[in-house]
């Protein structure tokens, strides 16, 4: 059966890596597995909004062509009955009703829940695209994605469940991206925390180096933790200028 995932996946193959494709489809949620035939006009809009930003971000070449091909595939090839929503409408990025990020210009907040291992990849991709969107450099954006990856992994490994929040602002000093990673897990004991910062702590699963690594990557770092309190990391990336 032709689903959104099989059709779009076939178009993106070779241009966007399988890892990134996975994350894109994860972000589409239930829509990814939906047969092309059963898509409503609204579904198509939602999918295209997601694909347009992701493809533009990750395709190394001819993203416009890819986006157009995706739109065509979603329209079910040639005969798309009713709706009149032909393949040509791929460029309708600013269509009202397309729910993108809230408050594009001034600043926005996005909260991503981290409940299972696959959420790590999704959070990483979200953080990356947010960093690029607000104008952080390519290198900084990779650092943002790496930091979120570490923090989200810590939540899954040690906290169980939690969330990552991305807050972007833009002022005359340039763009900033604040990341808050929080869980209601057991928290970190003071003695363990000392070992972590000293670099002598070794957990069974990770290297116990995630927090240290994040601290080195970011421009500003704050940790709130303790037994029974859970753990909340707040950190900040600043754009150049």
């Amino acid at each position, binding site marked *: 059966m032709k689903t959104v995932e099989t059709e779009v996946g076939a178009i993106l193959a070779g241009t966007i890596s399988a890892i990134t494709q*996975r994350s894109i489809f994860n972000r589409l949620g239930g829509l990814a597995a939906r047969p092309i035939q059963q898509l409503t006009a609204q579904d198509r809009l939602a999918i295209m909004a997601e694909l347009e930003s992701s493809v533009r971000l990750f395709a190394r070449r001819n993203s416009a062509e890819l986006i157009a091909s995706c739109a065509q595939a979603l329209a079910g090839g040639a005969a798309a009955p009713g709706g009149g929503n032909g393949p040509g409408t791929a460029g309708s990025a600013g269509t009202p009703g397309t729910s993108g990020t809230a408050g594009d210009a001034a600043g926005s907040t996005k909260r991503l829940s981290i409940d299972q291992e696959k959420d790590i990849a999704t959070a990483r991709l979200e953080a990356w695209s947010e960093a690029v969107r607000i104008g952080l450099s390519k290198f900084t954006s990779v650092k943002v994605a790496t930091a979120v990856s570490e923090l989200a992994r810590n939540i899954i490994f040690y906290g169980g469940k939690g969330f990552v929040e991305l807050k972007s602002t833009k002022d005359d000093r340039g763009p900033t991206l604040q990341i808050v990673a929080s869980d209601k897990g057991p928290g970190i004991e003071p003695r363990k925390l000392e070992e972590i910062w000293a670099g002598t702590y070794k957990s069974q699963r*990770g*290297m116990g180096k995630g927090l240290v*690594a994040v601290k080195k990557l970011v421009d500003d770092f704050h940790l709130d933790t303790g037994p029974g309190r859970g753990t909340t990391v707040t950190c900040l990336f600043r754009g150049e200028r």
Partner: protein
Amino acid sequence: MKDESLPIIQIRNCLLVSIQTELHDRLALGLQESLMERVRSADAKGVILDVSAVEVIDSYITRILNDIGKSVRFMGAECYIVGIRPAVAMTLIEMGVELDSVHTALNLDLALEKLELLQS
């Protein structure tokens, strides 16, 4: 979902794995195990892991790569990581994590060349 594994390709006496998917715990352990098995059965001298499709390498992935490198070394072979992206390399440096149990090469070709030199 279940029983997924990464394909291992043999080129002469080297084993090649291209990492194209999210490396989670189970997958990484499976890869380590099957690589060691294959190193033995194929009498391989080298293992090459291609990470050119991996956009983000964090400390956890680094640990996995180092672990694979160590286990391959215990078997008497050498492990090469190829295709690390520039931004990823810069990030690893800033984080202060080391890829010290593996060799690195710019691409597959150069890794094969280096492994060949090792054998002569």
